[in-house]
């Protein structure tokens, strides 16, 4: 199982629809400071169900929607779609390709979908946790987050292992 592609539209600095196709193995994302690399990381965490505005570096969840620039008006929604190659059946669902989508509207509404069918956040989280990606997102090591692992309390470290198990 691997992430085949990621589509972003209106998510943070990705005002225009952007499509990234990924490979198994190692994919590196590079670019200057402030160009949007960590925003890709935020998009992955967000579409997998991350609910903490702080983990996404915002003050409120609405901060993930493109806020506009000098030359472009703010957008009314953010949408991210993740396509997963499920040929090995790691996701307990009878498809070889699985898409997970999340949309957030500036007026506050949120939508989730698995393979185009509307669902709840909980359905997305449960589907992923069965394949080894838990709610705590131990699979995402954010920028500057490495030292947190060491500064964590013994109980918090236990949580890391419990989630992976």
């Amino acid at each position: 199982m691997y992430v085949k592609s990621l589509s972003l539209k209106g998510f943070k600095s990705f005002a225009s629809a952007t499509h990234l196709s990924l490979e198994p193995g190692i994919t590196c994302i590079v670019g200057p400071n402030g160009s949007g690399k960590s925003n890709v990381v935020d998009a992955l965490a967000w579409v997998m169900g991350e609910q903490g505005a702080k983990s996404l570096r915002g003050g409120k969840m609405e901060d993930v929607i493109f806020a506009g620039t000098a030359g472009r008006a703010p957008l009314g929604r953010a949408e991210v779609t993740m396509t997963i190659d499920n040929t090995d059946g790691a996701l307990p669902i009878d498809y070889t390709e699985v898409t997970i989508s999340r949309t957030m509207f500036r007026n506050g509404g949120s939508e989730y979908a698995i393979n185009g069918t509307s669902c709840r956040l909980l359905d997305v989280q449960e589907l992923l946790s069965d394949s080894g990606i838990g709610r705590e997102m131990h699979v995402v090591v954010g920028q500057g987050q490495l030292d947190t692992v060491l500064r964590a309390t013994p109980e918090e470290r236990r949580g890391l292992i419990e989630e992976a198990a």
Partner: protein
Amino acid sequence: VEQVFGEAFRDTAEQFEGVFGRLFPGGEGRLTLTDPSDLLTTGIEVEARPPGKKVKRLSLLSGGERSLVAVALLVAIFKARPSPFYIMDEVEAALDDTNLGRLITLFEELRDSSQLIVITHQKKTMEVADALYGVSMRGDGITTVVSQRLRDVAS
């Protein structure tokens, strides 16, 4: 629950000793339970002794050493209980060249069983990528993806 955690801890602790020894050749690292008699609530302590050194207090370790110990713990968890993919955002910031090389060796091992999405500024890391994406902002605050290079294209 106790048993699931107990086994996961044992496997992780075993991996940790191995990974630590590869990041700190000649050094010694160990994971211990704060309360081995209570598997339901026990926490986990990290012991790290870089080669040639006696000091074990984590706070006295250098910036680069702390990064490596944290990486050792995470990679131990990744190896004990694999997930299909991992995302790492500039974890090499504090590492010198030698340690960066050791980290990259670990990435290449994880690649055998998992997909890695790695944000980096380091050339050495880019060199082991199977695919490379460049992001850019052309002064207008909007991200564009400028290039995708696959390894077989380059070679």
